[in-house]
């Protein structure tokens, strides 16, 4: 794995971690406010789930170095 590939993988891991932890936290907030009487545990649970999912994705990404990743490109209007 070259240096730039490694850097891109780390960037992808960090972005993924941010999105997943934020999503878990957000869902935890929604469920805490709606069903669980503003307790703290849904937030912790959601953030923890997000962190775990991000860690698992990163681990899979680093352990399969020959798997190529596509990139989502915006369609250019002609």
């Amino acid at each position, binding site marked *: 794995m070259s240096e730039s590939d490694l850097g891109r993988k780390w960037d992808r891991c960090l*972005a*993924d971690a941010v999105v997943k932890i934020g*999503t878990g936290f957000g869902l935890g907030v929604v469920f805490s406010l*709606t*069903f669980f009487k503003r307790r703290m545990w849904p937030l912790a649970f959601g953030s923890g789930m997000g962190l775990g999912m991000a860690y698992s994705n990163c681990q899979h990404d680093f352990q399969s170095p020959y798997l190529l*990743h596509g990139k*989502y490109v915006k369609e250019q209007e002609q």
Partner: protein
Amino acid sequence: MVARVWSLMRFLIKGSLAGGAVYLVYDQDLLGPSDKSEAALRRAEEAVPPAVYQFSQYVCRQTGLQLPQLPAPPKIHFPIRESWNSGIIKVMSALSAAPSKAQEYSKEGWEFVKERTK
């Protein structure tokens, strides 16, 4: 009767909020593979600043407030990777040269002491 209907309505509203949040997460693939969540982050980065700007413009128009034009923030280009890498290289080369340097300095010190005590 009214209390029961009201509690049912509350449950339905809460359920639809929670269900909507879950559907949004599923639709945007936020908890999926890392490529999709990276793409979602890029979309959010592109969409949020113009939306915030338009909202602030709308608030200014409605309330008549004038926001002062702040100068653009300075672009700090600090290459952390290069400075970290060069730091590691310097430390490792110093460590690898340390035994020979120590030998050289101790020899020089010994010669100096011998000169002095003659």
